[in-house]
């Protein structure tokens, strides 16, 4: 575990030193909320039951999920770079458990995702999303986001372990990322989707993290989330399974890449 923490620390130091990475990491989610949220909100606003600010409130959990998956992709690229540059050999020759190498990367990915989620929540409050300030709600939300990031990081790490080509990695991950966002209830509710799409959305973990976040973060979120007919415990269960499956996949591909 201490090796994983050392590697986590190393990734964090590297990111903090990199002002370009830091600023884009913090600005990107803000742009999503402000540009997309406010823009779509004013388009839909007058017709929405919750009023002008309702869309921002509605889509905020989706932006958090999107940002988390973006962070996970970044974690995968970090891993791919370390593999391609041979940096991973330094770890492999050190007296540390092989899996701690993977854990260090996953930990730093989750940490960065948490910082970004907090930024989104604060920006959301500022632009007037109807959010709860209940600390338990926020805590639960961050827990859920961490588990979701871990699951997605697992997929990204597995892919980064399976290829030696940066371009191929990004192409593969984009192909996966797009339906994960759009084939979910992140940007539009389940009830308005055609049936085939709703089925797709229901097998997509993004739907469960988004629904869970609505329960936990939004004032009267229970009403909003209940429409989807997904209980909160199911959100936690699905995301927990997603996290475990993701890390299992990552460790399998990782072990294979060592031979």
């Amino acid at each position, binding site marked *: 575990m201490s090796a994983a923490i050392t590697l986590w620390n190393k990734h964090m130091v590297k990111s903090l*030193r990199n002002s370009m990475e830091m600023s884009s990491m913090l600005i990107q989610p803000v742009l999503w909320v402000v540009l997309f949220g406010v823009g779509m909100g004013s388009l839909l606003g007058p017709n929405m039951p919750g009023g002008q600010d309702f869309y921002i409130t509605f889509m905020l959990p989706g932006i958090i999920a999107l940002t988390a998956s973006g962070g996970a992709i970044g974690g995968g690229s970090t891993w791919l770079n370390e593999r391609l*540059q041979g940096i991973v050999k*330094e770890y492999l020759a050190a007296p540390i458990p092989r899996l701690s190498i993977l854990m260090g990367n996953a930990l730093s990915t989750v940490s960065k995702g948490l910082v970004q989620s907090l930024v989104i929540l604060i920006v959301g409050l500022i632009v007037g999303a109807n959010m709860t300030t209940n600390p338990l709600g926020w805590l639960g939300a961050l827990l859920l986001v961490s588990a979701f990031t871990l699951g997605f990081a697992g997929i990204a790490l597995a892919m980064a372990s399976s290829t030696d080509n940066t371009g191929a990695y990004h192409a593969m991950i984009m192909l996966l990322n797009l339906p994960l966002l759009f084939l979910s209830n992140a940007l539009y509710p389940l009830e308005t989707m055609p049936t085939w799409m709703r089925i797709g959305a229901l097998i997509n973990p993004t739907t469960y993290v988004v629904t869970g976040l609505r329960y936990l973060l939004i004032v009267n979120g229970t009403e909003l989330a209940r429409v989807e007919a997904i209980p909160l415990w199911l959100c936690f269960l699905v995301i927990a399974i997603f996290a475990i499956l993701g890390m299992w996949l990552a460790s399998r591909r990782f072990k294979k890449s060592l031979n």
Partner: protein
Amino acid sequence: MVESSNKRLAIKAEGLVKRFDENILAVNGIDLTIEANTIFALLGPNGAGKTTTINMLTTLLAPTEGSASVAGFDVIKQANEVRNAIGVTFQETTLDDELTGRQALDFHARLYGMSKDQRTAKIRELLALVELEEAADRTISTYSGGMKRRLELIRGLMTDPEVLFLDEPTLGLDPQSRARIGDYIVELKEKHGMSVLLTTHYMDEAEKLSDRVAIIDHGKILTEGTPSELVEQMGADVITIIGHGNREEFVSKINDLPCCETVTSGNGLVQIGVDSGSKHLVEVISQANQSDFVVDDISVAKPSLGDVFLKFTGRQFRD
């Protein structure tokens, strides 16, 4: 740690084989016995199996067949103990460009569980050894190739390893940096009792630095000994002939002469080891004339490891 290392072998390998994807045989049955407190060089061209051998001995790759122990520990069953006892400098740079030199050393030592005080002291000592103090707090991306190599070398030394692996430690460096790193390596052995396994394809380096040399090609060790033993078996002098014509007949005639100890031919070259070059020069040329072999160029020189290499591989050594 250093005291006990004198009593046991640094490296012992028996029948090491590494096969990739069924049909690529990178290492084909290597036996090695390396005493503690020696510098041992694996000399061979690119693709000879040097790096694969090092990767197996440093526990990065599992051997397909055979067994090996490093610092007395089995590389498969006691991989973690081996990792604790060794330092490695890989052939390609494995530095994180975005860290400073000091950070790179510190994170490395933390992976080995060194305390903060130990790390600080060791970093100071080693930075001074390779004269990198001034650059220590700059990001590695600003370092020159030689500085990066020196940093990697001391990174491998952070943990006071019993056995140090250096895969092409001076590859791509200017002669001055090469000489300097060579001096450090000798110093490590002499002052700190370390055992060093290095690979190189610089002949002069292997000859100058190492106590023992093994020539490796196609995944096999062809010969092994001290540099002078290897060179002496070539004879006192080597006559090197470049020519064209009936080379086979010429070589067989030379082989029949009593004076000539070894004859090698390949790549248009014929090399003849003799007890005294100047004495036999005329004799050799007259044999060439008798066998329709036209001599374009002929030289007499003291043999070098390069000549040994040619003898065992039938190929000339290219740097």
